[in-house]
């Protein structure tokens, strides 16, 4: 059942997976705000009673100056964290394995995105360690969601599990003209000559465009961002490849 508001629509879709259910319902055992420099988005470390670790990014904690520099609204980063996951779970593997699970949850009176912790290493070496298929999938996903800040700190390489993790989707779902600070997987995919869409990616885009509500995102994303998502998917299909860095 759809809600009456974008956040209501988002909440109505949550809870379909075990991890989402855990993030939504497990009691909070530890809630530890990050002590950092002034003006930066406030993120709290969370330990759930289930033993799961997560991060809570509240609406109140958004650094509006930084958000506006990216063309984001003051309320969009937590929503976009959740929208990235909603799209990933709708598209299924490999995207649902790459993207950190995120739900909207109120904790201690503060509403925000509660994001499952991804473990592993970051950095330049971690960015090239995953199998080619995972790196190509990351590029496809980042191109589709108009990720604005995929640098080597916004990934985790879990070597024992041989799994790349994509984190931090607050600055995504950009629209044309918004800045792109970094998009390492998109640049990498073009750089190694693999920009062409795979048959599975074509199917994924066709399913997204064939969905009456963009797999649930129309009605959650701001209208201009939803139409930009559909436009990117259409242009990727027409061109037969992922978009170039910063083409939102």
């Amino acid at each position: 059942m759809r809600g009456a508001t974008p956040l209501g629509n988002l909440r109505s879709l949550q809870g379909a997976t075990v991890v989402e259910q855990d993030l939504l319902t497990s009691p909070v055992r530890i809630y530890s705000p990050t002590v950092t420099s002034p003006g930066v988005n406030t993120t709290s470390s969370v330990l759930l009673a289930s033993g799961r670790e997560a991060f809570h990014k509240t609406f109140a904690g958004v650094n509006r100056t930084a958000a506006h520099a990216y063309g984001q609204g003051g309320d969009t980063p937590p929503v976009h964290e959740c929208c990235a996951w909603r799209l990933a779970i709708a598209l299924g593997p490999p995207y649902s394995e790459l993207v950190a699970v995120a739900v909207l949850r109120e904790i201690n009176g503060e509403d925000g995105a509660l994001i499952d912790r991804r473990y592993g290493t970051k950095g330049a070496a971690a960015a090239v360690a995953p199998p080619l298929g995972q790196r190509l999938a990351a590029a496809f996903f980042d191109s589709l969601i108009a990720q604005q800040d995929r640098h080597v700190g916004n990934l985790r390489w879990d070597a024992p599990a041989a799994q790349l993790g994509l984190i931090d989707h607050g600055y995504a779902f950009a629209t044309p003209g918004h800045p792109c600070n970094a998009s390492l997987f998109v640049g990498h995919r073009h750089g190694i000559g693999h920009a062409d869409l795979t048959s599975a990616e074509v199917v994924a885009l066709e399913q997204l465009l064939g969905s009456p509500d963009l797999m649930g995102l129309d009605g959650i994303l701001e209208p201009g961002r939803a139409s930009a998502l559909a436009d990117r998917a259409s242009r990727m299909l027409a061109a037969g490849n992922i978009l170039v860095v910063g083409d939102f």
Partner: protein
Amino acid sequence: MVHVKLASRELNDERTAYVDVVRVELTVQGRELEVVSGDRSWLDLEIPILDAETGRSLRFEDDPEAWARRLPDAYRSGDIVATVDEAAVPVGVLA
């Protein structure tokens, strides 16, 4: 001079509290970067950081001090925390 600590947030052994484990500590003065302590591999010099004032991506090589000062903007995920000491000055300068 800019003094930066990069820490990872970890549960203590009893899983009763989060603690910040400092991984690398550095200072940047002018174009000189010095790793004061810790593991240099935790430092990602290749990260561009969007400068909210100019709307442009700032790289280390553009302006090392300004880049270091904005490192907290680069790490928003919560498991890695950059803290900046804006008042840091070289030892002895205020003596």
